[in-house]
């Protein structure tokens, strides 16, 4: 059963220390992401969506609970092994694009492959990766923006570069935290279409955080986060 899960988060608690006070944002919640599944996560602002995504993306450690990535307990690994997992199994798209300003579009896209080389796993052929990156950016309509710096790109273009970067190593899992939150409706829609297309073509296991209720229809499953808990959508949820 668990081998079929791309992500499996159990009893996740997360609290923040602000001065003397401790604020618990997540109160022991669960999430299962099945392979090839497109999952939408909704919730009010401040509900803890980003916090949860960071935990699922192994960027942040839960105060309590476990995160399994393809059956592997991520927090039982060493720092380096976890970094490698993050590098090669999970793609992350942020609301604020988060490109490195010193690098050109194509260099940003290739960066995960360079990092992968330092993990020494599989032989990374930078030339081939470069071609793949170029091809990806061309597919996203950025063929004439390859050597532009992020500051020379529009928000929508930056986000497309960020998506290309997240997918460059062909990770099976993609986490997108409000990828269109910073874009106008038309641009956002283009970016989303692109993301959906890639999800289908690559058979990605994807979590999409969004405020857009209309998107819910296009998702396999819609979850809502409320009071620090995932409220399962009963209609779609498969009991376990």
């Amino acid at each position: 059963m668990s081998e079929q899960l791309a992500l499996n988060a159990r009893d996740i608690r997360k609290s923040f220390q602000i001065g003397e006070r401790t604020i618990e944002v997540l109160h022991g919640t669960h999430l299962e992401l099945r392979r090839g599944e497109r999952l939408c996560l909704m919730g009010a602002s401040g509900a803890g969506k980003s916090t949860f995504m960071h935990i699922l993306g192994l960027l942040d450690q839960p105060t309590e609970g476990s995160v399994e990535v393809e059956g592997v307990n991520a927090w039982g690994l060493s720092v380096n092994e976890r970094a490698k997992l993050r590098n090669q199994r999970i793609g992350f798209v942020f609301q604020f694009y988060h490109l490195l300003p010193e690098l050109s579009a194509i260099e940003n896209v290739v960066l995960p492959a360079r990092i992968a080389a330092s993990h020494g796993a599989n032989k990374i052929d930078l030339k081939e990766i470069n071609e793949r990156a170029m091809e990806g950016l061309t597919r996203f309509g950025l063929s004439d923006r390859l050597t532009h710096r992020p500051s020379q790109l529009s928000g929508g273009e930056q986000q497309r570069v960020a998506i290309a970067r997240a997918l460059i190593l062909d990770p099976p899992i993609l986490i997108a935290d409000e990828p269109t939150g910073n874009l106008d409706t038309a641009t956002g829609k283009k970016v989303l279409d692109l993301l959906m297309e890639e999800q289908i073509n690559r058979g990605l296991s994807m979590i999409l955080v969004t405020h857009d209720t209309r998107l819910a229809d296009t998702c396999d499953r819609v979850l809502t986060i409320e009071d620090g808990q995932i409220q399962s959508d009963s209609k779609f949820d498969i009991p376990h």
Partner: protein
Amino acid sequence: MYQGFLSWRFLTAKRINWVGIIGVYVGVTALILILSIMSGFLEQQRRMVRGSLAHLVVEPSPMPHIDGTPLPASSEPLQQAILADPRVESATTQLSWFSMLMQGGARGSLISTSRLSDTQSAKLVGVQIVGIDIENELRTTDLLASLQPPPAEASINQTYGYIAVENPNDPFSEPEGLEYQQPWAWCIVGQQLAIVHGLRRGSEINLGTMIPDPQTGKVRQSNRKYLVAGTFRTGENEIDLGRIYMDRRDLHDFLGTHRDYSQVLVKLHDYERDGQAVMGDLSASLVQKRLIRDAGLGELKTWEQYRGNLLGAIENEKVLMAIMLSLVLVVAGFTVFAILTMMIAEKRRDIGILAALGATPRGTMWIFLLIGFWDALLGAVGGAVTGVLAALNIDSIEQSISQALGVEIFNRDVYLFDHIPAVVDPVSVGVIVLGAFVCTLTFAAIPSWRASRMNPIDALRYE
């Protein structure tokens, strides 16, 4: 490796990094240049301090042996015993004594008086008279070099008063064209001494001295006239002002002392390698042959021991200077530290992004450490090249600066050298470059380590 790639990008993206590179660059250049010049001066000084000495000096005690038997009157056995060692290249016997120089004689001089070197304190010009065996002497010491005419570009200080001997290989022979009726022997005098007394070739000098009689204990006066054949110049003021060389047999005849020698100078094939060993062997064998009294009394010395206090001071100076100058590198390292700290604060978000893309904390640390490495590499290599080039061309650099400013920076008369001496020691250059690396990387390590400890999420929440 992405670390190398990113560190280079981060380095070139921010102009402030030049400050770090220039800091290291200036530090390394200055250190190499100044230490090279210091070494040059010290080397020059060292050569002067060694001056007329050879590698080892055997100076038998003037006292008889414990049992009352005197040491041999002739230097022959001592000389032979020393030459028996295969590591010895040559040895030369000297007889030295003190004397007072009085001027006068046949050629045009009305004054016949001794001269005060300092009229205020009534110091007499005492001179050291040294009898040498010319062939052995030339083979063993630097005398030949000090008989040579000063170089063409030499200052007036060096050329003034110079009198060439006719034949440097046989300086005590009578110069041709100067037919003297006097039977007196020829001698060579220090160049400064010649100036003080206005001596020229063929000048007549009268050397007076006192010799205690070992039997009666009475002090006997004696004097003898000599003719000046030429001058020598060692660069060491005391010697150039106070020494006269002559033939040893002649001097022994003049003095009438029991012994015909006072010391033997020894030159080795390889002093650096054999010096200490030969010292030990010689002192044992010479004591055993009863040619010296007891090596423990300092009858056997290396030239360094002979001039020990002076050399010690020179070395101390060098070490002190190096320590003080190393602070330049610390300052450069601190600049790199400050810049990196600033840069890491600015790059919080990027550090978070890298972590999100799968960079390890150690990988992040390497990025910033490598920026320090680039600073060190560019600064140190550039500085080393500039420093070495500047040291090698310091003379022309000084001259053009002097010309531009209209001030003479390096007074060639004061220093007795005709050029600024600079010795580029590859080992020192290596140590300085290494020091720059160690210093810069140590300072870079602190902010780099802190960068690796950043929580990626804290870094990413910035927007």
